C-alpha cells in the first residue's frame, strides 16, 4: 500500500488552502504532518479522505486514482479521525463503533456478524474503552471521546489511517500509549498512517517521516532529525526555539515569539 499525492491544490471559495503539494507515503511508515494553525494540515488529510475535493492534482492509492474509487470502496480503504462528530441525538459508544463496520457489510443487511463484534471488542480493549461502551457519547470526557474516535477509525480496519490531532485532550499516559499502539497497528497491519499533530515532541518520538506545512505548502520533509531544526521551525512558527537532546530524540523547547503581532 502506498499513497502518491501529485500537485494538489485546494481552494475554499477564494482562499487557497493547499498549493502544489506533492509527496509519497509508504505502508508502515509513520508520517507526521506539522505546521502552524491554518497551515493546511487538516485540509490535506480531508482531501486524502475525499471529504474535500481538490481543484488541481491527483491522489493515487496503490496506483489507483482516488477520485475513481466509489464512496463505498473508499470507506473500506480510508479512515479519517475527525476531531468533531455530532452527538446531539443521544447514542452510545457501542452504537457509534458499530457504524464503523458498515463499509464492510451489505448496506441492506440486517445481521451483525460475530466477526464484526469481535473487531469492536478487540479494539475497545486495546484502547481501554471497553468500560465506556454503554455510555452515551455526550457524557464522555474529552479524553475518553478522543479515544473513542480513534477506536472508531481502527474498527473500520482501514488500509489508510488519517489522524487529525490524536493527542488533543489526552493525558500524558494516553498520548504515549495511543500513538505507540497506532504505530504498532500501522506496522503489523501494513497500513499507511498520516498524523497531523501540534506536539513536536510526540512527532520526534513516533515519526518515521516528518512533513512541515506552512501556508498550504510543504516546507520540509524528512526524518525527525533532518526536519526538526532551529532554522526551519523558527521560520515556520515564528518562535525562537532551543533544541534539547534526550535519549537521542530531539525535544523542541519554544522560548519566545520572534515578533509579537496583534497580541500586545
Amino acid at each position: 500500500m502506498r499513497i502518491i499525492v501529485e500537485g494538489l491544490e485546494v481552494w475554499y471559495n477564494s482562499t487557497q488552502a493547499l498549493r502544489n503539494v506533492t509527496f509519497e507515503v509508504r505502508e508502515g511508515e509513520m508520517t507526521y504532518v506539522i505546521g502552524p494553525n491554518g497551515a493546511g494540515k487538516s485540509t490535506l488529510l480531508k482531501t486524502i479522505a475525499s471529504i474535500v475535493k481538490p481543484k488541481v492534482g491527483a491522489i493515487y492509492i496503490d496506483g489507483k486514482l482516488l477520485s475513481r474509487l466509489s464512496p463505498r470502496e473508499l470507506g473500506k480503504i480510508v479512515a479519517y479521525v475527525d476531531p468533531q462528530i455530532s452527538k446531539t441525538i443521544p447514542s452510545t459508544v457501542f452504537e457509534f463503533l458499530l457504524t464503523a463496520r458498515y463499509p464492510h457489510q451489505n448496506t441492506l443487511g440486517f445481521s451483525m456478524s460475530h466477526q464484526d463484534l469481535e473487531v469492536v471488542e478487540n479494539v475497545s480493549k486495546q484502547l481501554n474503552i471497553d468500560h465506556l461502551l454503554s455510555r452515551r457519547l455526550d457524557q464522555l470526557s474529552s479524553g475518553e471521546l478522543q479515544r473513542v474516535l480513534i477506536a472508531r477509525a481502527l474498527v473500520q480496519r482501514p488500509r489508510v489511517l488519517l489522524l487529525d490531532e490524536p493527542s488533543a485532550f489526552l493525558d500524558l499516559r494516553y498520548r504515549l500509549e495511543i500513538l505507540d499502539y497506532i504505530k504498532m497497528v500501522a506496522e503489523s497491519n501494513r497500513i499507511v498512517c498520516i498524523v497531523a499533530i501540534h506536539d513536536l515532541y510526540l512527532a520526534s518520538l513516533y515519526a518515521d517521516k516528518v512533513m512541515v506545512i506552512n501556508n498550504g505548502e510543504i516546507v520540509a520533509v524528512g526524518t525527525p532529525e533532518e526536519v526538526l531544526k532551529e532554522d526551519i521551525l523558527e521560520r515556520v512558527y515564528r518562535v525562537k526555539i532551543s533544541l534539547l537532546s534526550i535519549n537521542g530524540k530531539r525535544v523542541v523547547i519554544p522560548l519566545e515569539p520572534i515578533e509579537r503581532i496583534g497580541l500586545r
Partner: protein
Amino acid sequence: MATHLYKLKIKSFLASLLLLTTLLLFLFTLSLSIGPAMLDPREVFKAIFLKPFNPSVERGEVHVIAMLRLSRALAAIFCGASLALAGLVMQTITRNPLADPYIFGLSSTALTAVALGVILAPNLMVHKVYVVLVSFLGAMTGYILTLLLSKLGGGSSLAMVLAGIAIASLFSGVSHILLYIVQQVVKTPYVYMLMGSAATVLQRDLQFLAFPTMLLAVLTLAFFKPLNAYLYGDEYAKQLGFSPTLVRDLAAFVAALLTAITISFVGIVGFVGLAAPHIARFLVGSDHKFSTPITMLVGALITLLADIVVKLVSMFAGAVGELPLGVVTAVIGAPFLAYLMIKKVRE
C-alpha cells in the same frame, strides 16, 4: 463485552416489541369495545381475533358493532405510527432532538394546501387520493421553505429550528383563515380539521393510509445504516460511503409524505412526532434498526390511547361534538416526555 452488549440490545428490542404489541392489541380491543353501546372487551377480542381461526363462531351483534368502530381505531393506529416515524426521521436528518413535523412547518403547510384545495376544487377533494397528494405537495413546499430560510440564516441547527417556527407560525395562521372559509364548503366546524380527529375516517379510505405507511416504514428500515451514519455528521456519513445530501433528501421526502398522509386523514395531531422517538430511544437506543419499529409502535399506542380518551370524554362530559385528538395526545404525551427528561438529567 461487545457480543454481550449486542445480545442485550436485541433482548431489550424483543422485550419492547412484545410488550408494546401486547399493549397495542389490548388497547385496540378496548377501543373497539368503547362507544355509545358498551361491549365486553372479551367478546370483542373473540369476535375480531379468534373469528378467522374458528369459523364456527357466528357473527353476532358484537362483531357488527366492533367492525363499525374498526376504521376509527385503525386510523388512530396508523396515523400515530406514521406521525411518530415522520418525527424520528425529521430528528435524524436535522440531528435535532427537538424536531418534529409540526415544528418544521410541514404540518401547517400541508394543511394550508388541503384547505386551498377544498376551496378551489371541492369536488376533487372528495377523493382521498387527491387530498393526500395535495397535502404532500404542501408538506414538501413547507420543508423546502424551511430549508431555504435556514440556509439564508446561516444553516446552523438553531437557524433551522427558528426558520421552522417562522414557517409553521405563518402557515398555521394562513391555514386558520382558510379553514374558517372552508367551514362554508364542508359544513363542519373547523376545529376538527385543525386539531385532528380519527372519527371521520372511512373504511374504504383506510388503504391510502395503511399501505403508504407500511411501505415508508419498510423503506426507512432498509436505510437504517445510512441513517445511523448520518447521526454523527455529514463528514462522518461521507467517510462510510453514504452521501449525506442523498440521505437527507430521501429522508425528507419520506417525512413529508408521512406527514401529508396523516394531515389528510386526521388533521394536525401534535406531540406524537416529538415524544415517540424519544421514548423509543430510551427503550432500545438510537440504532434505527431497532428504533424505527419501536417508535412506530409507541406512536400508535399514544394516539390510540388518546382516541379512547376522546371517546370517553365525549360520552361522559356530554358536550357538543368531540375533543380534538391533538389536545389529548399532548396531555398524554407530555408527562411521559417530562419523566424521561428528568430521568436522563439525573443519570
